[in-house]
């Protein structure tokens, strides 16, 4: 059944410019994702808003359109999600309205595009790399290591986290996941102890265990189990 959706995009030319809103109309059965809607919108030679005014293409990030790259994270009717896996009919309220906003915990670059480079920077500060693998016997099961590697660093776990952004040291779940895998695999050397120290400083000492990240993760990664395993290796284990 066809219906009309009113999709409002929060836009901003740069971090220092004033934000504004533009609304677009879409008619269809609603079985189209927010990402496909944005792609189709930008593909038009002349992009018209609901009032018939020509506007510039909406800036946003995308790459895979199948929930495998993490680029298209944004707030959809206030819920952080990947635009490629949310369908208009599921996102809209009863009046068919959908509001698209950039993630709020990261600096806006333009429109729906934000700067998430802090995630990579934090992993660098936390020295998350392997010097040498110790054995094939790990604390984490192979399945948990596999799940940890799946994390795409989309930033949604940080968006919903009550601590990330308030405490400047706190790196959040994304860093915990990657650090946990590496700490588990690394041999017992000075680098391991350095990583353990950084893990405490950037994660363990500040996580308030709200576990908001568990519900929000678009891949449904087992973040509670991953955290328990990471804490065991990084904090509780005696060397």
């Amino acid at each position: 059944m066809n219906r009309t959706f009113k999709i409002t995009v929060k836009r901003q030319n740069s971090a220092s410019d004033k934000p504004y809103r533009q609304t677009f109309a879409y008619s269809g059965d609603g079985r189209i994702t927010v990402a496909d809607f944005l792609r189709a919108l930008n593909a038009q030679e002349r992009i018209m808003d609901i009032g018939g005014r020509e506007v510039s293409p909406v800036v946003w990030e995308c790459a895979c359109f199948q929930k495998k790259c993490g680029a298209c994270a944004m707030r959809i009717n206030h819920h952080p999600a990947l635009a490629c896996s949310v369908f208009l009919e599921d996102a809209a309220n009863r009046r068919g309205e959908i509001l698209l906003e950039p993630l709020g915990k990261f600096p806006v670059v333009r429109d729906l595009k934000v700067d998430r480079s802090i995630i990579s920077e934090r992993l660098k500060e936390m020295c998350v790399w392997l010097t040498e693998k110790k054995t094939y016997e790990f604390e984490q099961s192979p399945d948990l290591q596999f799940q940890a590697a799946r994390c795409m660093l989309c930033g949604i776990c940080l968006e919903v986290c009550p601590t990330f952004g308030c405490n400047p040291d706190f790196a959040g779940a994304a860093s915990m996941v990657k650090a946990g895998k590496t700490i588990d695999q690394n041999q017992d050397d000075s680098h391991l102890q350095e990583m353990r120290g950084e893990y405490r400083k950037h994660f363990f000492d500040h996580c308030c265990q709200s576990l908001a990240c568990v519900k929000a993760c678009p891949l449904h990664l087992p973040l509670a189990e991953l955290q328990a395993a990471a804490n065991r290796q990084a904090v509780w284990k005696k060397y």
Partner: protein
Amino acid sequence: MNRNVVIIGCGMAGLSAALHLAGQSDCTVHLVSDMMSERSQSCLAEGGINAAIGPGDSPELHCEETLKTGCGLADAEALMAMASAAPDIIRELDAWGVPFVKRINHSVSVRRMGGQTCPRTAYTENGIGRQIMDVLIQQARMYEAEGRILRYVNWTFRALVKHDGCVCGAWLEHLDTREMQFVPGQVIMACGGLNGFFGNATGSTANTGIAAAILFADGVPFSNLEFIQFHPTTLRLKGKNLLISESARSDGGRLFVLRDGKPYYFMEDKYPELGNLMPRDVVSKEEYSLIKQGAQVYLDLRGLPAKTYETTLASIVSDCILFAGVDPTKEPIPVEPGIHYFMGGIQVDKSHRSPVKGLYAAGECACQYHGANRLGGNSLLGAIHGGKTAAEAVLCSEFSIPDGSSEGKPPVSLGYFRMESLQSIMRAGMGLERNKAQLENALNAVEKVSVPDEIRLFSRAILLSALNRTESRGSHFRSDYPDCDPAFQKSSVAQCCDGEIRFGWEEKA
């Protein structure tokens, strides 16, 4: 002496090159990419990575089967080097923490993918690309912290800078500010395939092909542009064709069409030995002939062991349910051939050097290893081995940036443009089945679309490459020349000289 190297693209090939350079010499690597490595198309890869580590297998057999599937167009010497290096690559990835599926004795397990007579594909539970990228990104991070790899995220390639015909750097353009920046060094291209010229490929839309077009217009020769792999099992969505990995057939998935209301398993009937796991070009062509008769092709994953749905098939099952509302455990998946991989690309020798001094290429943007058709599991191997080989060639080169060289004036931005009109022309011209009239229509239509000159020129080169190969071979299927012609057992080479496209042929093997 400190050596600067610019790498364009931070997917698997780019990271492999960067790690090799940063680890072995006093190199500074400038790693350039539109987005961070976590977003790259390499992260989407599904099937696995090939290496002759299984019982009864050998690098010679790996090489032979790849060459056969490539219909004689791949460079046998380069291929043998890759097949021989593959087992060590698997060992290295294992040591860096890729959670490969293992045998009970901790050795890496292999499974059978298309075109193999021996199980040869190492794999993880699923999503091997993400798993390998995770460790490559992790190891690159160490060099980033040391300042040996400098990341330029959100920068895109804009132009090569040459001095006396040698590449001495690249101009980069910032995606948001449009600011230009010059970075000195020899240049390794690792910018992926030409998805942006077609629009509905299974891969990433970030692989625009624009860097390739810029290089082509600058005179860099490209080989075998006519060879585009159509993957036999893709699911048409609103925006893209979703890949259903070959691993689904490796796990027991069967292709069928309905005949008189009953399933007819056409691959098993026609090819009793390899059945559903024939090379992709063969399966796609069989499907296409049935689709032309009005049939719908289905991939049947029903009735497989429950454990398979929870492990190796888990992401396929959840993707089909989420994106198409089809539950593969209960109903067959409607599939069609879809654009998946570009075998052609920048012409390189077995060391991954392009004919332009100081320019190298690796991964999907380079023409190497796959010939007329690629085997599943060889693209990740080609990306890692190719990146390493290109890095090695840079280290072996005597070439240094001459003192008198200057970057000159910054180039002008290509600005904002849309590819959609061009994409529909290219899809119509370069379909799975092509003919002269179709290709000529596309050539005419390309003249009228509004895109930058570089983009139009490169589109013409792709179409002309397909027009010039008046035979059918591998993935290139001409309805007006349906037979393979031994006289064409050579690679096409397209090059732009003074605005004109010139063609030649290169004998390989």
